[in-house]
């Protein structure tokens, strides 16, 4: 974890443009020395909490899946090939977004933007691919209500897609800000948050994909 080195002067009153007091990031309240606070940027810590809530959500869904699967009457179907392609796209986007981060760290802002834009595009491509995959399934006659196996398939992939759509929106937001010249090697928190969340969505997808593959 990166520890924010710069802190406001001790006791400085921090007021941002909204008229909100802030405690200064990354350290003790009011900018005191941080021996009483976690050495983690609060926003990053908050993101990890958010991620743990999402993990609980998907643990619940997949536990339900296991229970239902073991009860029988489980239609097996072959996932359309496009889901393999989507998986590849998402993995690739994780790679490009990580590379973009390395560029930003070296202050190569132009190549950062390009790689970041590519990652965002790949994210959108993944979503479009998922929609196509669902359409192909429907053409095969496998609807949401056909069998518990298909219900769970749509439920899990749909829930993942919703979270990923949120991720894409934040990528677009950060990308626009980067066009406005916002980020540099010293100011990269927004990018880091996006990237953590994006990798998480990638791993979550791999988990779901393997999970579904093994059982259908």
């Amino acid at each position, binding site marked *: 974890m990166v520890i924010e080195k710069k802190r406001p002067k001790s006791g400085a009153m921090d007021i941002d443009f909204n008229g*909100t007091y802030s405690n200064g990031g990354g350290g003790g309240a009011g900018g005191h020395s941080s021996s009483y606070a976690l050495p983690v940027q609060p926003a990053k810590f908050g993101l990890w909490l958010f991620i743990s809530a999402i993990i609980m959500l998907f643990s619940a869904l997949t536990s339900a899946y296991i229970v239902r699967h073991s009860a029988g009457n489980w239609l097996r179907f072959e996932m359309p090939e496009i889901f393999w392609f989507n998986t590849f796209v998402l993995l690739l986007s994780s790679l490009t977004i990580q590379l973009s981060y390395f560029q930003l760290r070296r202050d190569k802002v132009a190549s950062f933007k390009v790689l970041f834009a590519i990652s965002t595009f790949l994210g959108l491509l993944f979503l479009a691919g998922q929609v196509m995959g669902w359409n192909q399934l429907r053409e095969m006659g496998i609807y*949401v209500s056909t069998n518990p196996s298909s219900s769970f398939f749509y439920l899990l992939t749909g829930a993942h897609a919703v979270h990923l759509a949120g991720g894409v929106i934040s990528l677009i937001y950060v990308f626009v800000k980067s066009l406005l010249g916002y980020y540099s090697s010293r100011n990269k928190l927004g990018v880091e948050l996006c990237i953590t969340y994006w990798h998480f969505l990638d791993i979550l997808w791999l988990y779901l994909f393997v999970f579904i593959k093994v059982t259908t």
Partner: protein
Amino acid sequence: MAIHTEHTEVAHKQSFITKYIFSTDHKTIARQYLITGIFWGVVGMILSWLMRLQLAYPNQPMPILEKILGKWAEGGILKPEFYVALITMHGTIMVFFLLTAGLSGTFSNYLIPLQIGARDMAFPVLNMLSYWVFFAASVVMLASFFIQTGPAAVGWTFYPPLSALKNSIPGADLGATLWLISMALFIVSSLLGALNYITTTLNFRTKGMSMGRLPITVWGMFVTAILGLLSFPVLLAGAVMLIFDREFGTSFFVPSGLVLGGQPVPHEGGNPILWQHLFWFLGHPEVYIVAIPAFSLVGEILATNARKPLFAYKVSVGAIIGIGALSMIVWGHHMYVSGMNPVLGEVFVITTLAISFPTAILVFNYLVTIWRGNLRFTPAMLFALGFLGLFIPGALTGAFLATAPVDIQLHDTYFVVAHFHFTMATSAAFGMFAGVYHWFPKMFGRMMNDKLGKLHFWGSFIGVYLIFFPMFFQGIAGVPRRYYAFTEYNFTSQFLGLNKFITIAAFVAGAAQLLFLFNFFWSIFKGKKADKNPWKATTLEWQTDSPPPHGNWGPETPVVYRGPYEYSVPGAEEDYIPQTVPVKVETK
């Protein structure tokens, strides 16, 4: 997220809207939660009066009911469908909207930043959103009262298949859909809150405020937030699956072979028990999400008003953490009669009995805290003592329910109703009242009336005992819960007289709440001005103005030198030493 790099030192003006409505100030948000919570408390209480009227006077026309409720009480008699809607909405409103959002929302927001010496929450904008999403959830829930088919009527536990089939009963139609939407919003709101409470506690403590010096209240709110963060998403998962069953024809929870109104139901192969697991995986932690904040407020108030340090602070903190951890693995005790494997049931018996240990330790620590203390009977203190007086019988009866063979007899009887109204409902409400009386001077800068507060306490305490204690006996006699009328069988109709008595007690206890409402709103405007530290307490919030200014502290945040409970320290000038007083080095 409001992360910023520039620090300007200009003062700024707040407009009415940013100050009172879309405010990011944790103190304003706390007050918004409190007032909304009180609103829901009143609604929930009115619903309970309607239920009690029906139970005391079944089939007796009361024309006034028709005037108020229209078609739900044609001829002055409550419709059975509406009675089921009443129990559903009463439970939902009291458990989630009053005792979760109202209680945690108010006191986590108000006390965490103030008691740890921070200027605000970690993410003030998310905090504001948390309130407004809760507000939206409230609007949706309230709207469901005014639709054609009426509000949800499938019990607050929303068991399928009743809740999964829209046409099973009128109350499973649009009302249940709105319930699910409202609860989904509610979960989002509580997650936003929890993110803030946890991050703030860990990251924004002022200089000197180590975890070991946190007031017990902050510990309680912190553990509660973690519980919420981990268990509410599971309910969300269940709710989404239920929405799929209801809207997209899936069969997660609907079993095969169901016949409804002579027609076979198209769903097949679902498992209704699965919902029970998902629901109670949240549902049991939820009861501690309600209880722990109340517990922690009470601990603070007992120590302050007994002028004694909280006994065994570290053990109490450990007990709270232990309760929080264990509460995640006991949910099966709600399902002993669901046909689960008896071996699994036995495992849940053991974990459930295990959770009584940390609970008992906490209660004992509190009792020792007040033992031979120099007690000051403020209204807050009375309610805190009342909390113990209600929680203890509730928790003791929990041990009976936890034992599967006994529970098979008692499950779904009034014994359970009495149990959870003692442990959770009334005791948490008492904890909340205690908190309101105690922190009101800080929140609004004025004192509440003492005499009215004490009257409120005695009316509530006696009222609550008269209402709920007899229900233990009804439950032992086998009277089932959630029934519309107890006229058919002798073993239930024998209690008709007792039911009348309970109903009268309910109205008396309700009248006492009117005293509170009057006292609360009157004191906001007309109460005596409060000074900084009316209770002579040690924690940080009492060392700043009442109410604290925007930003809580002057130019410097406070520095902490000692633990939170230095009361009656031998040799000290006064009987309390605030946390901000430096420790003198002894020189002889």
